[in-house]
């Protein structure tokens, strides 16, 4: 029996926090992928030819309905065996996490596009605006307002799933706790508690801000 110890918690904190910084780095990289790739998929869903649209949709549906953990393991072994063993777990893990969540954000963007009144498209056609102007000046600004809150929610969820990458050896918080416990034969209680509290401290304010944004956008009656 080995309960909570304040000293050990204090001793472990810097180490776990180091893992937390890695979590933030992964979140930043995967976040950019999720935001941009999701947008690309959503736009191509409206503009790309049939033969491209369908397979992309299937792939995204498959990605959305299978576990992130297995995807990460699959891609990690595939890249290290057949593509390039030099790629680090950080790079591969962030990419898979980003693509996984792009399959969710693209749905939010798509809902945002579909919610735009038909008259907007018709007006753009009536003014015979060039295609890129239609997208950049009319569709995207309205779509982004509608989907920002939903995408932000996916990014928060993604942030909390970063520890999955522990499975391929990314040095996030769980790995740090493991490392400490491996040397000292103790520290699970403090380590996992600190990790959970760090997640809570980081995600709660963002979640509250997102909810505010959601309410404000809903009220603004756009």
């Amino acid at each position, binding site marked *: *029996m*080995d*309960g*909570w110890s304040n000293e050990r918690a204090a001793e472990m904190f810097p180490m776990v926090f180091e893992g937390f910084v890695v979590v933030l780095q992964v979140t930043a990289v995967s976040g950019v992928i999720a935001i941009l790739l999701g947008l690309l998929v959503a736009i191509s869903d409206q503009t790309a030819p049939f033969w491209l649209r369908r397979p992309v949709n299937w792939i995204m549906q*498959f990605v959305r*309905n*299978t*576990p*992130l*953990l*297995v*995807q990460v*393991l*699959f891609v990690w*072994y*595939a890249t290290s*065996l057949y593509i390039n063993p030099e790629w680090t777990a950080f790079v591969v893990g962030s990419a898979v996490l980003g693509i996984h969540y792009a399959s969710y954000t693209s749905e939010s963007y798509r809902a945002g596009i579909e919610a735009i009144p038909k008259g907007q498209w018709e007006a753009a056609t009536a003014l015979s605006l060039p295609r890129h102007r239609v997208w950049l000046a009319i569709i995207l600004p309205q779509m982004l307002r509608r989907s920002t809150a939903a995408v932000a929610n996916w990014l928060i969820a993604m942030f*909390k*799933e*970063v*520890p*999955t990458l*522990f*499975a391929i050896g990314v040095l996030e*918080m*769980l790995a740090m*706790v493991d490392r400490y416990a491996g040397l000292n034969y103790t520290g*699970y*209680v403090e*380590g*996992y*508690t600190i*990790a*959970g*509290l760090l*997640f*809570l401290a980081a*995600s*709660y304010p963002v*979640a509250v801000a997102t909810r505010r944004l959601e309410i404000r956008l809903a009220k603004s009656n756009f």
Partner: protein
Amino acid sequence: MDWQIVIDSLPRYAEPLWVTVQVTLGSAAVALFVAFGLGLMTSSKHLIVRTPARIVVEFFRGSSVIVQLFWFAYAMPQLLGFQFDYAIMVGIMALGLNYGSYSSEVVRAAIGAVPKGQWEAATALSLSPWTRTWRVVIPQAWPEMIPSLTSFAVMLLKASALVSMVSIIDLTAMANTIGRVPGNELLVQYGFLLVVYFILAWLIWSGMRLLERRAKRGIGIGARPSKKALADGHGVQASGGAM
């Protein structure tokens, strides 16, 4: 892909498949229970009921499900000197509490969307709060919840793979074990696994769609409200008439 390798290892996947199904269904049951408990509490008009429920919801939603899983598996036995009798209970509890907290927001929103007139009518008929909640409000809120709950059920299935990280032998853990043996090609095993999970997810989608259709028929509404009912306006009347 060399299918012979997969076919040869199929029998060894039988028991882990059952573990994955048990973890998913077990945590879905826990999650449903937690969701209704917390959802009803956070919809309460009494601050004293609402506040503790909100704290629990925010706590479980805010601190990553994976960390919670590890906490239940490795920190709880040391801290509380208490251990579940069955290893899979760790997975069921961690996933159930986490996804239950998420789903409680769905329950709360659906309850909030039941027209006020329904509450007032139930009160006017002097139905007890219990009857009003379970015989009037919930049956109308339930079909509204199902699509969101379905997404959460699929997420639960996906999250069930995480239990392999706390030494529970589910499908993912078995693929790790089988794949490490030379000649069994880890990648083939993972590829097979992805297909299996996809089929399981598809089963959840189809099952829940049936459930939704039944729930809607149960309160006398079709797949979606008819245009005429909407054109007649008076949302309260339209849904009241549908009872």
